[in-house]
């Protein structure tokens, strides 16, 4: 199992690297323009420090600490908290929808955010639901990301833009989209 998890995180990191410029462009429109750089910095360190002990919880924990240490932006503690929650949950169950539920809950707790606030949570929550239903696909992930366009930001830097945040994809939702594409691609969505 742990190999799929490592594969997942490696694919995610590679994608963050490839889409660095695009993610920062999304953040320029409704934030401070650093989300791509933030995540790419975290991804580098995540790859370098990937746990090799063979323990899934340890892999998540190391990845969490890497993002926490290097990301710099709000997404650092948010992804960090989510991955810490996954690390804990992976020690209790193999049910992937429970893992993702724990991650989403950690994000909501850390960010004091909820569904519809136009954040990464608006990808995590519907992904979790689809996963529980056994209906998660790449197309659905893209749709969840795209749907953040129509939302008005209520949390994070974009919230000061009010109505002007509408019409733009949330950068953290987009990077979370990459996370879940990698999840499917690595086959990490089942034990």
């Amino acid at each position, binding site marked *: 199992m742990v190999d799929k998890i490592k594969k997942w995180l490696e694919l995610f990191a590679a994608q963050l690297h490839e889409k660095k410029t695009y993610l920062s462009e999304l953040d320029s429109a409704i934030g401070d*323009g650093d989300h791509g750089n933030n995540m790419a910095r975290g991804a580098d360190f995540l790859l370098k420090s990937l746990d090799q002990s063979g323990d899934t919880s340890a892999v998540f924990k190391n990845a969490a600490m890497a993002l926490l240490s290097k990301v710099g932006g709000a997404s650092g503690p948010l992804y960090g908290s989510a991955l810490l929650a996954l690390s804990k949950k992976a020690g209790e169950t193999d049910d992937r929808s429970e893992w993702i539920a724990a991650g989403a809950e950690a994000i909501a707790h850390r960010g004091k955010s909820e569904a519809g606030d136009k954040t990464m949570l608006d990808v995590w929550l519907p992904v979790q639901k689809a996963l529980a239903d056994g209906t998660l696909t790449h197309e659905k992930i893209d749709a969840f990301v795209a749907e953040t366009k129509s939302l008005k930001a209520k949390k994070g830097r974009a919230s000061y833009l009010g109505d*002007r945040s509408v019409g733009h994809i949330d950068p953290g939702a987009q990077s979370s989209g990459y996370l879940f594409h990698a999840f499917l691609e690595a086959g990490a969505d089942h034990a």
Partner: protein
Amino acid sequence: MLIMPEIGILLVSHVREIGDGVLRLLKEVAGDVTIKAAAGTEDNGVGTSFDRINEAVTSFEEPRIWAFYDLGSAKMNLDLVSETTDKNLEIQDVSFVEGAYVAAAMLQANASEDSIHSELKPLKIK
């Protein structure tokens, strides 16, 4: 796309580094807003300088300037400048970093003045 804002932002602080740092923070979200800092005394000690503030105010091309300040004595110098300058200097009695950040982000987004003021209102602490 972005209409040149007619309002510039002035940051008045007792410490040079604070002024420079807040400017850097704001520039990340407000690249098209004119933002200037007048911070520290002329020999870069802790304090504010009427001359520095006055020069900064004069150098704006925007007809209106929103001024943010850290502590009360900066406000006294700002008041004095506003009594002597031709510029439209609007002193914002809101929390320094947080208030200036909100104003910069919203000016960049071409938000209406009303909506900016209503975001600033809960930050009024002075």
